[in-house]
Every structure is written in C-alpha cells, then in structure tokens.
C-alpha cells in the first residue's frame, strides 16, 4: 500500500501548504453555519415548555461542551501519533489544539453556569456535567503548564504527550466517578442540566451549531499549526521560499 501520502502529510512544509489552502474552506463555512445556527436557535426554535426562553443557551452550551471533549480526543490522538511514530508535526498539532480546547471548556462552564442560575438559583452547582467539564479544564491547563515548563521543545512535546495519554485514559474514569458521585446526592431541588424534550424545530439549529463549531475548531487549528510550524522550522531554504510567497 502506497504510504507516501502519509509521509508527505507528516512533513511540515507540505502540511503547511495544505493547511493554508484549507483554512478559508473551513473558516467561512463555519461562520455561515454559526450565524444560521444562531438565527435558528434564537429566533426560529420554539420556546421550551418548562424552561421558556432560557433553554436557548443550550445552543452555545452543548456545542462548546461537545467540542471541549472532541478537542481533547484530538489532542490525545495527535500526542499518541507523535509518540508512537515519532512525528514532530503531530506534537505541534496537539500543542495548537490545547488552548482552543481550554477555551471551549471555559465557555461550556460559563454558559452552563448562566443556564443554571435561573433554574437553580445559584451561579454554580456541582452538577455532574459541569464538574466533569471543570476537571477537563484542569487537564487542559496541566498539559499547557507542563509543556511550558520544559525548555527543550522536543522533550516538552513528548512529556506533555505522555500526560495527554494518561489524561485520556483517565477521562472515562473521571466521568464515571463524577456521575456516580452526583447521583448520590440528588437533592429534591437539584435537577441535572436537563435537556428539554426536544422536537425537530429545536434540534436542527443545534446540529447546525455543532457542525459550525467543529469547522471553527478545524479552521483555528490550521492557523495555529501553521504558526507552530513556522516557529519550529529550521530549514532556511524552505522558510525563504515560503515567506517570499
């Protein structure tokens, strides 16, 4: 089987060019989808029976939460590829993805809190999902902190990659234990960050937002990886050629 395409992809100059060409094809559709999703979620979707207009926060909360986990999976996958096949570019992808994931996690937490306040009366509840998101944020920050603490880029890449893999293995454990913990203490007043019973008019803007957010992540990732490649590349000939474009 001809694997040269894989080798080509792992070469930074090649990836750089592909990423550059791909970026607008990811960014603009992302913007369009998000705008459509916003309109659908804010205007078109009918209000929920129980939660009224407040449930609309779902349209930013759920995509953010979903992305926070997708990005971590990406980060862990890239780290694994980097460690096993010793592809430095994979580590660059992981490093580029981390801040994006942390931001999505932060938005998930903040919007979750804003969603919860009118429902539960407090700005924060130790709801299973929010708690799990908080721990995920710790994992992201740990990854970035470890990478930043080691001066040598190669060592930093690999150490952070090990941490990412340990984290991704721990993630199901963390989820299970947090949900287990949360069900123990169900007070009468505390309900989960419940999804309202959902009809199609409510669902399609959510799917649109999800797709939009995912494309947005991909677009952000391409730009950040490009920056990372430029920062690491030592081949003067290629740099000269690329920067002259």
């Amino acid at each position, binding site marked *: 089987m001809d694997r040269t395409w894989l080798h080509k992809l792992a070469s930074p100059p090649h990836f750089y060019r592909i990423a550059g060409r791909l970026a607008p094809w990811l*960014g603009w559709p992302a913007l369009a989808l*998000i705008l459509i999703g*916003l309109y659908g979620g*804010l*205007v078109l979707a009918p*209000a929920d029976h129980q939660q*009224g*207009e*407040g449930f*609309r*926060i779902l*349209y*930013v*909360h759920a995509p*953010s939460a979903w992305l926070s986990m997708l990005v971590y999976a990406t980060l862990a996958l890239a780290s694994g590829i980097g460690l096993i096949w010793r592809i430095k570019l994979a580590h660059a992808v992981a490093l580029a993805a981390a801040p*994006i994931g942390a*931001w999505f996690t*932060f*938005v998930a937490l*903040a*919007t979750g809190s*804003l*969603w919860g*306040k*009118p429902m539960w009366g407090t700005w924060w509840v130790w709801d299973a999902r929010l708690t799990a998101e908080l721990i995920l944020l710790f994992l992201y920050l740990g990854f970035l902190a470890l990478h930043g603490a080691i001066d040598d880029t190669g060592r930093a890449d690999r150490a952070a990659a090990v941490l990412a893999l340990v984290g991704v293995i721990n993630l199901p454990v963390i989820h299970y234990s947090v949900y287990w913990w949360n069900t123990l203490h169900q007070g009468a007043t505390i309900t989960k960050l419940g999804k309202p019973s959902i009809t199609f008019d409510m669902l399609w803007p959510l799917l649109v937002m999800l797709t939009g957010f995912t494309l*947005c992540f991909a*677009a*952000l990732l391409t*730009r*950040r990886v*490009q*920056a*990372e490649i*430029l*920062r690491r*590349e030592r081949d*003067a000939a290629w*740099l*000269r050629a690329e*920067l002259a474009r």
Partner: protein
Amino acid sequence: MNAARFLAMGGYAAYVWPAFGLACAVLLWNAWAARRAHARARAEAQRRLAGLEADA
C-alpha cells in the same frame, strides 16, 4: 416577532444574552488570536532568516 420581546427573552435576557455574547466573543477572539499567532510566527521566521543570512 416584536423586537422588544425578542430582546427580553421571556425574562431570561440577563442570562441568554451574556451566554451568547460570551460564546461569540470567545470564538471571535480565538479567530483573531490564531491569525495573529500566524502573523507573528511569520515575522519571527523572517527575522531568524535574516539573521542566518547575515551570518552566512
């Protein structure tokens, strides 16, 4: 739909609008930051290249 009613969001305005505002602000900031990171990396690479060629 009535604009005032839309903005009021059935009484949840104080929560809905900040939530959407925050999400959009974070996405826009990330978009700007990613582009800026790229531009900065280009500039630094130029400088590095110039330095190398000056030494050569």
